[in-house]
């Protein structure tokens, strides 16, 4: 542990830390452009110069200099001040002064740092260079003349996203950052380079010229596009969420968010259900809330009622619906819309037990019928990190490009029972072996049982030197899944049990993936926010709030309970889900015992205390004993990453991404 002084302040930093980190530990701000905590060190911008003794009598780049014992670092000397001014002046030589028309304005590192550390004028009066525009896809808008060649975007593409398509071509004054042959970057994580770019070279295309950062209201939220529970921030103005940015949470999303989390929000303004509808003579007709409620009450369902929960729901909604059904005398609730019926007797057996953070430390991982790149891109980056630490990855399923090297064992679930010898050896010898089951595998009869047998064979749940290790992971795709399971939204036979019960009344809560033809004879009430498949099949539509328009509790795939705040109001007559259910319950004669959201949440917490504690819920490891003979191929449930839910399907950005990146349709010129 080197001990050194920074401006006379003594600090001790971990072995291998850099001088820049030591300065931060001492509370000193070091300006930087190329250095980023989560990327490799490049040391090419020189903005982080400090004076270090002992060493050559010149300023040194602190980001690339290892901290050593007895170093004396100065961050406020004249030499440092002059060095920073010089670097800044050089940096601005070729940087256009177009801040007024640049979207980065107000959140630009270069702008901020030139004010703080620049000399306030330039002595340069030659021509500035200009760089041609580069096309980088439907998400990234480029203005490459502004690029300062920090190479953060290049390093991100290579190290985190794993799609090496961005690079620096040419050299010297002619160096340019570009995507390969100026084609779209085909990464689900491409939007992150927009945040990483310290200048306005890479900005957001969908959000171009929408707003200045200081006009935006910032609300802390949780993403519902997948089951990772990415911590996000809604940036809204008026009634519109203009963009979504990731927040830092090392346990969940580090500081990344995938493109769907970021850019599906324009779908919140399109295809919205903003008033109730009632089906009359086969056609959905606009109605008032009272008329809609009457139509539902007229069904006289008694206790012949069932409910299906969609993928984007918060726990409070699912709790309120569960209570309503219970009061009506039914417990037919199910959240697995597409017919999955895996055993949920032990929640630990359907949880991502290694935790998102922990999977990085695994040294052998078996992927079973999962495409993490699409089912949870941020889990995929964690697996990439595990590989960097030396992990070996094997997979059962159809071969796909996961951005890293995988040993594909074949697409046959019977492999679970007879792993090739070499593979079994690796798992036997592994210290932290792990298995990740995807949604595809959960649908194969016996696969979960077979996987649990493997967990036993290789002793994947064990005590290690660094604490307990549980290598059994199920990777869900729906943000509502774990919360739903905690609230009991599962029937032994899955949705088939609901079908078999032939309910007179069926509530579809944002459920758009259900095959409604199974419920031919039921009166279908759709409570949701988008006019998608669920609404099309409904007899009554009750418009509700999307995730940005309500407070809510969500549980991610690893069982982490997180709360999201309401950023904007739902459009038109739409109401928050819990209040719809509360109002309806009164009409149905089974009044729910809460009048405010707070009471609803309190009642939920009383019923399932784990939902009241933010952080990892603990599930006891007591795996069920299941039929363990699985065979046959497995398919990946997600066919189109960009269009997995009603919000994304309504989003023109996501439609464009899907068309261009997945279906190879020609580039649509942006209307500018």
């Amino acid at each position, binding site marked *: 542990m080197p001990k050194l002084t920074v401006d006379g302040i003594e600090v001790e930093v971990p072995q291998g830390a850099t001088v820049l980190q030591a300065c931060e530990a001492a509370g000193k701000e070091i300006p930087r452009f190329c250095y980023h905590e989560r990327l490799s060190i490049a040391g090419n911008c020189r903005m982080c110069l400090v004076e270090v003794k002992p060493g050559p009598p010149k300023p040194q780049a602190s980001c690339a200099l290892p901290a050593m014992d007895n170093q004396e670092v100065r961050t406020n000397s004249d030499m440092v001040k002059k060095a920073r001014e010089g670097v800044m002046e050089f940096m601005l030589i070729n940087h256009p002064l177009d801040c007024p028309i640049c979207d980065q304005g107000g959140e630009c590192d270069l702008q901020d740092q030139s004010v703080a550390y620049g000399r306030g004028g330039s002595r340069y009066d030659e021509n500035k260079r200009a760089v041609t525009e580069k096309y980088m896809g439907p998400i990234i808008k480029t203005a490459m003349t502004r690029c300062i060649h920090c190479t953060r975007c290049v390093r991100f593409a290579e190290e985190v996203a794993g799609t090496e398509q961005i690079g620096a*071509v040419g050299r010297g004054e002619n160096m340019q950052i570009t995507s390969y042959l100026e084609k779209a970057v085909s990464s689900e994580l491409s939007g992150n380079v927009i945040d990483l770019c310290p200048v306005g070279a890479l900005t957001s295309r969908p959000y171009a010229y929408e707003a200045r950062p200081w006009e935006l209201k910032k609300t802390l939220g949780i993403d519902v596009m997948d089951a990772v529970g990415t911590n996000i921030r809604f940036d809204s103005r008026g009634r519109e969420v203009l963009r979504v940015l990731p927040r830092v949470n090392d346990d969940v999303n580090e500081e990344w968010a995938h493109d769907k989390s970021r850019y599906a929000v324009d779908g919140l303004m399109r295809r919205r259900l903003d008033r109730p509808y009632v089906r009359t003579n086969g056609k959905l007709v606009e109605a008032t809330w009272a008329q809609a409620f009457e139509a539902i009450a007229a069904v006289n369902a008694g206790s012949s009622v069932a409910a299906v929960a969609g993928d984007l729901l918060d726990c409070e909604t699912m709790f309120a619906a569960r209570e309503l059904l219970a009061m009506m005398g039914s417990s037919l609730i199910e959240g697995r819309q597409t017919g999955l019926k895996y055993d949920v007797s032990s929640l630990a057996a359907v949880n991502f037990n290694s935790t998102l953070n922990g999977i990085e430390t695994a040294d052998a991982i078996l992927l079973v019928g999962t495409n993490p790149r699409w089912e949870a891109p941020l889990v995929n980056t964690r697996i990439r990190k595990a590989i960097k630490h030396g992990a070996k990855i094997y997979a059962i399923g159809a071969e796909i490009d996961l951005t890293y090297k995988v040993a594909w064992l074949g697409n046959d679930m019977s492999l679970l029972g007879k792993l090739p010898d070499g593979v079994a050896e690796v798992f036997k010898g592994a210290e932290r072996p792990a298995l990740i089951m995807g949604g595809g595998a959960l649908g194969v009869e016996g696969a979960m049982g077979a996987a649990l047998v493997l967990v036993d064979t290789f002793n994947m749940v064990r005590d290690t030197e660094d604490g307990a290790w549980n290598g059994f992971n199920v990777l869900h795709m729906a943000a509502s899944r774990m919360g739903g399971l905690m609230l009991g939204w599962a029937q032994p036979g899955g949705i088939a049990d609901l079908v078999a019960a032939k309910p007179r009344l069926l509530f579809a809560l944002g459920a758009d993936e259900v095959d409604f033809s199974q419920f031919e004879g039921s009166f279908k009430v759709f409570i949701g926010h988008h006019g998608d498949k669920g609404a099309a099949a409904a007899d009554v539509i009750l418009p509700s709030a999307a995730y940005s328009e309500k407070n809510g509790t969500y549980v991610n795939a690893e069982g982490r309970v997180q709360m999201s705040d309401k950023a904007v109001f739902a459009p038109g007559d739409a109401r928050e889900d819990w209040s719809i259910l509360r109002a309806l319950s009164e009409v149905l004669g089974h009044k729910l015992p809460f009048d405010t959201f707070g009471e609803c949440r309190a009642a939920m917490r009383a019923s399932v205390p784990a939902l009241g504690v933010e952080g990892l819920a603990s599930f006891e490891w007591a795996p069920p004993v299941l039929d363990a003979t699985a065979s046959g191929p497995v398919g990946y449930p997600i066919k189109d990453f960009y269009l997995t839910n009603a919000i994304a399907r309504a989003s023109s950005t996501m439609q464009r991404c899907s068309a261009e990146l997945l279906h190879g349709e020609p580039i649509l010129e942006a209307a500018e």
Partner: protein
Amino acid sequence: MADAAHIPDEAETRARWGGFAFTAENLAKAQTYIARYPEGRQRSAVMPLLDLAQRQVGADTQTQGWLPVPVIEYVAAMLDMPFIRAYEVASFYTMYNLAPVGRFHVQVCGTTPCLLRGSDNVMAACANKGLVKGKTTPDGLFTLTEVECMGNCANAPMVQINDDNFEDLDYDSTTRILEALAAGESPKPGTQIPGRHTSEPEGGPTTLKAMVDANHDYRGEW
């Protein structure tokens, strides 16, 4: 670059070069280059391989060769590296041509030592022969490029033509060389001053003269 040569259209190059593969002979060479680097570091062979590929393209087209995109991709795939990484290398070094060149790639050094010793005359000789910076002559023979220091300052001014250096040039010798090349002859590379061998002092030694014939102990004279 204002005088950058025109890179052909991508579809066109793909149609022409999409099927590029090393000849058996070059493949064997490529394997030896790759084998020079330890397991897992094969990417290090990218530079010799790109050069080899450029030479093969040259042989195919009767020119000095260039690197069409599909050829760069072929090399990258061979080394199991992302295309952009190989493309970065190819675009960084001026020895790789990203656009077609003629049979003779005339690279005139214009850096200070050569400039002081008369590279302008060399340029003028080229211009007089119809060579234009960044362009290939209509007969496909010559491509002219102005380059920075080639490390031959002791024999300035100089020009590199294909794999040979021609040094100690003036207007006449440059003209002579270009004419000889155009006529299909192989002019003598190296210094063009009669009597000079390589980069030794012109007109005989200027220092350590006493050492020319036998060893001489200078220490007493210090």
